[in-house]
Every structure is written in C-alpha cells, then in structure tokens.
C-alpha cells in the first residue's frame, strides 16, 4: 500500500512540475465543445437538446488524448520494468497510476463541465446530474483506457491503435452518462442510469487493473 501511495505522489508531482498536461486536456475539451455551436448552428433549442451528448463525447476524446502516455514514458525509460519487479502487486500500482491519471485529467473536466453546460444552454437542473455522471463515468474511462495503453506499449502508430481499441469499450459509459443527463433535463428520474454508471465503475475497478497488469507483464517480458 505504501508503494502505491508513493507512486501516486510521484505521478502527481511529475504532473504538477510539467504542469501542461491537465491544462492541455481541459483546453482540448473546451475547444471540442465550442466547435459544436459553430458546426450545428447557435440555435439554443438544438444546443440544449444535444448538449449532454456533446459534453460526454468531448470528455471521451479528452480522456483519450492523454491516455497513450499513461505507461509509455515509464516504458521508454525502463521504470515500468522496475514497477513489474517491485514487491507490491502490479495491479495495485496500476490502480495508483490510473488514480493519478484521473486526478490530473478527469477531475479538471468535471470542474469545467458546468461552464460548458452554460455555453450549450443546458437548463440548470441538469448541471448537478452532469457533474455526478461525469464523476462516476470518467474514472471508468481512465480504467478502461489503462488496458488499451498497456496493450499498445511499443506498438507502431500506438496512439491511433489505442483509440480504435478503447473507444468501442467506452460506449456503455457514454450511453448511460448521456441518458442520466437527458433524464434530468426532461424531469425524469436520473437515478437508474447513475446507478448503472456506478455499477460499471465497480466492474471496471475489479477487472481493469488486473487486465492492464497482465498486459504490462507481457509487454515487459
């Protein structure tokens, strides 16, 4: 457990020193969302209809953006092999890295999401549910993405391949995330989709570190 917290602290410190990553991801997120009113036209009614989906798709793409570097830098400089050989179980270390990834990319997305909801003319009743859905959904994205990042270590055109592998697996989170927001906007009960998002997160928590660790082991073999 100690090594996991140490790893988490190292990752966060690295992210803060380099500083740029979180900001870049948030900028990308905002830019993608801003493209939509320009693309489909600024009509408030249409924007309010598609707003939840647009924010979710932008969040998926933003989460993908930083995903390929999750293990790649450690793989290149050899510290990933040290992690594999460390006495702590690799699954826990993977979880620590994923937690660091989520704190530096997922959390900022949630923080700026109300601002984007405002830009897309979403009714204020949806803000809370949108943030809650993103809070339950984005950790699953980081967890699932970790598998893809571990599988494509050292692959040719790894970044493109990563999106091809991971985006289809993001679809369940997308579906229930959007339906929670839509339910809130239509004054329906948004609890069921939120509960399913929670279930997806628990499932991802149980399975993904294990699969990602297996993928890392075969990569460093």
């Amino acid at each position: 457990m100690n090594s996991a917290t140490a790893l988490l602290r190292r990752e966060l410190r690295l992210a803060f020193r380099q500083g740029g990553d979180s900001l870049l991801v948030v900028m990308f997120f905002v830019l993608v969302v801003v493209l939509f009113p320009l693309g489909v036209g600024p009509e408030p009614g249409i924007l309010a209809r598609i707003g939840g989906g647009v924010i979710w798709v932008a969040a998926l793409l933003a989460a993908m953006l930083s995903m390929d570097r999750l293990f790649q830098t450690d793989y290149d400089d050899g510290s990933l092999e040290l992690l594999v050989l460390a006495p702590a179980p690799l699954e826990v270390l993977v979880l620590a890295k994923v937690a660091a990834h989520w704190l530096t990319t997922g959390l900022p997305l949630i923080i700026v999401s109300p601002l984007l909801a405002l830009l897309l003319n979403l009714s204020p009743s949806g803000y809370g549910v949108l943030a809650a859905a993103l809070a339950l959904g984005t950790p699953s994205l980081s967890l699932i993405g970790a598998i893809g990042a571990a599988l494509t270590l050292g692959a040719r055109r790894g970044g493109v391949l990563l999106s091809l592998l991971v985006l289809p697996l993001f679809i369940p989170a997308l579906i229930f995330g959007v339906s929670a927001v839509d339910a809130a906007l239509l004054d329906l009960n948004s609890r069921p989709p939120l509960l399913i998002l929670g279930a997806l997160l628990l499932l991802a928590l149980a399975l993904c570190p294990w699969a990602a660790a297996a993928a890392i082991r075969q990569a460093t073999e």
Partner: protein
Amino acid sequence: MHSFANPTRFLRLTRALQPWAAGVALVCLAAGLYFSLFASPADYQQSETVRIMYVHVPAAWMAMFCYVAMAAGSASFLIWRHRVADLVAKATAPIGASFTFLALVTGSLWGKPMWGTWWVWDARLTSVLILFFLYLGYMALYNAFDDQARGARAASVLALVGVVNVPIIKFSVDWWNTLHQPASVVRLDGPSIHPSMLTPLLLMAVGYTAFYAWVLFLRVRTEFAAEKIRALRFRQAAVPPARELKSQEG
C-alpha cells in the same frame, strides 16, 4: 486436449478433417439454400422477408461462436503457451469479422422493410457493432508490433477483455426493450418457431459452422507454413553461406 498442442499432430488432424468439413459444409449449405428459398413458407406477418432470417441468424450465431473460439484459443495460449491455440485464434479473427459484418448487413436489409429503418441504435445492434470493432482491433493489434510474439500476446489479452461483450449481446434483447425480436430457437422451453422454418435455419447453421471449420483449417495450415518459412529464412540468414555448407558435407 493438450495433445493437440503438438503442431505436427494438429496439422495431421486438420488434414484428416478437412474433406469432412468441406463435405458437410457443401451439402448443408446446398440443402439449406433449397429449403430456405423454395421449400419453406412465407411468414404470415413478415411475408417473404422472413427468408433473410436463414442467412442472418446463422451469421449472428457464428459471429459470437467465432469470438468465443478466439477467446478460448487466446486464453489457452496465455495460460499454457500453446502456439497452436494462438494460431487458431489468429485464423478465426477474419472469419468471425466476416460473419459479424454479414449479420449486421443482412440485419439491416431485414430491418428496412420490417421496422422501416436500416439501423436503430438499440442494445443488440450496438453491441454487435462493438463486437465487429473488437475483431478489427484484435487484427490491428496483432500486426502492430515488429516482434510477432508481442503482437500475439497483446492481441490475446484484448480478446479476453472483449469477452465481457458476449453476454451483453446474448441477453441484450431480454434486458432492454428493443425492436429486435427475442431468441426463438435457443430457449429453455424449446424453440418457438415452426418446424418448416426450423429445418432450413438449422441446415444453414450447421453449414456455416462446417464452413468455418473448413476455412479455419486452410488458414491454420497457411499460418503454419508461414511460420516455417520465417524460421527457415532466419536460419538461412544465421548460418554461413551455402558454399561452406557444401564443403562441410563433402
């Protein structure tokens, strides 16, 4: 079962089984086509479009069957390091992708006259589309590494991760309300489909399965030969030039 992990024995087995697979596939597909186009009635609701079922449903079954076969091969490759299992999984992927594509397209051709739309975003169609992407991802990942062994292992892990999708496909029509009709052949209380329609359906299903085995044997033999070619090339590059070899023999 582990005795088939011996490549030579496996190769001999495929050579012995190949004519049988070919025979069963040709006979069942010919009979199935006859029954599905001529000797079966039109549905009282769906009219003649019900005939699309005889190519759609077996393709959808095979799409899932191939994925399970691929995942099982990948698992036995990762656990026991059976090279044969990996080659079976690798050879299955393009066949499974073809069946999945067929299931999607024939389903679309069936959906247009029946539901009035080529495509609906319901759970069954979406999860089969994800299955198609999993096949494509598996093949892309397999070929993405300079080191072939790396690609084989990474793709096997991916195949196992994708297994979560299989029960979702199977039960999507029961868990969610959709346009897609629920299972009518594989049910606990027996098939709810008339025998005159069940005959062509089962014939086509057996024919598709035998066809899968037939093509699988061809592809596995190709993979084995390619593997031997790689090994020979490697040796030719490693050993001294041919002239020296001759002098040693002399």
